[in-house]
């Protein structure tokens, strides 16, 4: 029997009379990889903002591991094991690449400071940024910033990882490696929800896909069901 790590129920959000989310309901199963797709402006990033406390919903509830987390400050989400990336990267520009990772260390590494450092080195090697460990983050390219942001959140060893367009601007050769790493982390128990525009990639990676359009979830289900849906074919695959 599967259990939900995240239960979103009837979330609505308006900005100055514009209804961005009109009642989003979604269950994210523990240990799954869920993809959220939809056209630009559909409300995907707003949903992430609300889940992680960066914005407040007008109505609805969000349960993380069975506990209502609405109204919590964003810094408490990370401490509970829920962490996200942003569509536009928000790293610390005048810290070094290594310092950017160390800020995200949860301080609970059983191997202490040395273990934290080892993990940072391992992640920097993985995202091919080890040679830039002492460079200021402001000197990195957009793709490198996306990789740094990914390494930051992985530094935290979250239970639930929300990734907002994690592959945008990244070298295609590295994308396959990152996908494999996400699969490995998922096998180790990490639940992943990602927003992505590349439907074939989402279909190959995810256990479940939710299609957001006009502020509601139009379809949710296994990749083969969603990909073969005529409406999805029309919007994402050009019929």
């Amino acid at each position, binding site marked *: 029997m599967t259990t939900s790590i995240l239960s979103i129920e009837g979330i609505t959000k308006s900005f100055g009379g514009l209804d961005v989310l009109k009642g989003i309901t979604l269950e994210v199963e523990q240990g799954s990889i869920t993809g959220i797709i939809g056209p630009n402006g559909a409300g995907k990033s707003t949903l992430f903002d609300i889940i992680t406390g960066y914005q407040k919903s007008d109505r609805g509830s969000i349960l993380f591991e069975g506990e209502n987390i609405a109204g919590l400050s964003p*810094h408490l989400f990370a401490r509970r094991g829920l962490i996200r990336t942003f569509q536009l990267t928000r*790293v610390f520009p*005048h810290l070094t690449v290594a310092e950017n990772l160390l800020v995200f260390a949860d301080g609970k590494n059983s191997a202490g400071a040395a273990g934290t450092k080892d993990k940072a080195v391992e992640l920097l090697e993985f995202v091919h940024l080890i040679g830039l460990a002492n460079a200021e983050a402001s000197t990195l390219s957009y793709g490198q910033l996306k990789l740094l942001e990914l390494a930051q959140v992985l530094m935290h060893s979250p239970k639930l990882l929300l990734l907002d367009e994690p592959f945008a601007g990244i070298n295609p050769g590295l994308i396959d490696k990152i996908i494999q790493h996400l699969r490995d982390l998922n096998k180790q128990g990490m639940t992943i929800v990602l927003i992505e525009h590349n439907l074939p990639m989402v279909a190959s990676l995810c256990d479940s896909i939710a299609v957001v359009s006009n502020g509601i979830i139009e379809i949710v289900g296994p990749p083969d069901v969603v990909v073969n849906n005529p409406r999805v074919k029309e919007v994402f695959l050009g019929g």
Partner: protein
Amino acid sequence: MPPMFGSALISGLVIGGFYSLVGAGLNLIFGVIKIINFAQGAMLTIGAYLTYWFVITTKLDPYLALPFVALVLAFFGFIIQKTLINRVLGQERTSQLLITFGIALAIQNTTLALWGPDIRSVNTFISDKTFEVSGIRVGATAAMALLGALIVLLGLFLFLSRTRMGTAIRAVAQQADSALLSGIDVKKVYAIAFAIGSGLVGVASVLIVPIYDVYPLVGEHFGIISFIVVVLGGLGNIQGAAIAGVFLGVIQNLFAVYVSDSLSTAILFFIFLITLLFRPQGIFVRKMRVS
């Protein structure tokens, strides 16, 4: 080195040390919390009176008051941030600007009510001691002030660059959203930054008291000059503020000795205007940016 030039230089370095301490504190607060603390000078007044009160009550040397005054002011800053400033963050800019101005006025009027307008002075066991360096006579209190400022500023740089909390402070200053994401309690870091900025003023006030008289507006001059320090050093640039403070102190004293004593403060405001017009980002390298 001509003795007159040497003396002016030493005096400039000493007053510059005070400017650096107060300015670095102001810049730390601005860099991290993005508010302008108009109460920085008034906090120095509190520190000066606390030192005076410590000496009168305990009969001990004023330098022994340093940990006490620095900690009391740091705690005071922490409480101000927690109870007052955190409440107006995110509100309109005017509220944020006026709240520290209001705190400054409250402090000035309270000190006036408690201690009156009388000018008081405090002596230390080294008040009348001097020593000679390359033919230049240096007061022991001046040397102590310079040394104290240097040690504290060095400690601040090391704290910000080498410790976990220092890195967290810099992270919050640069990208508060991501700092929240990493699990940092941003509002607590704001309060810690305000406490450190206020603690620096506490150190400055103890070092100032053996040299300057204590009266309700003693901090005002240093508070105003600290804004020039911040602009010259670059907003959010702690190292720039430290260098700018010393630079301004030296310029002010050399100008007083060789050009005009009465215009020696005015020259600082002239530098302030020129900097704002032609190099608003500050004139020093951005080595220790918190923001």
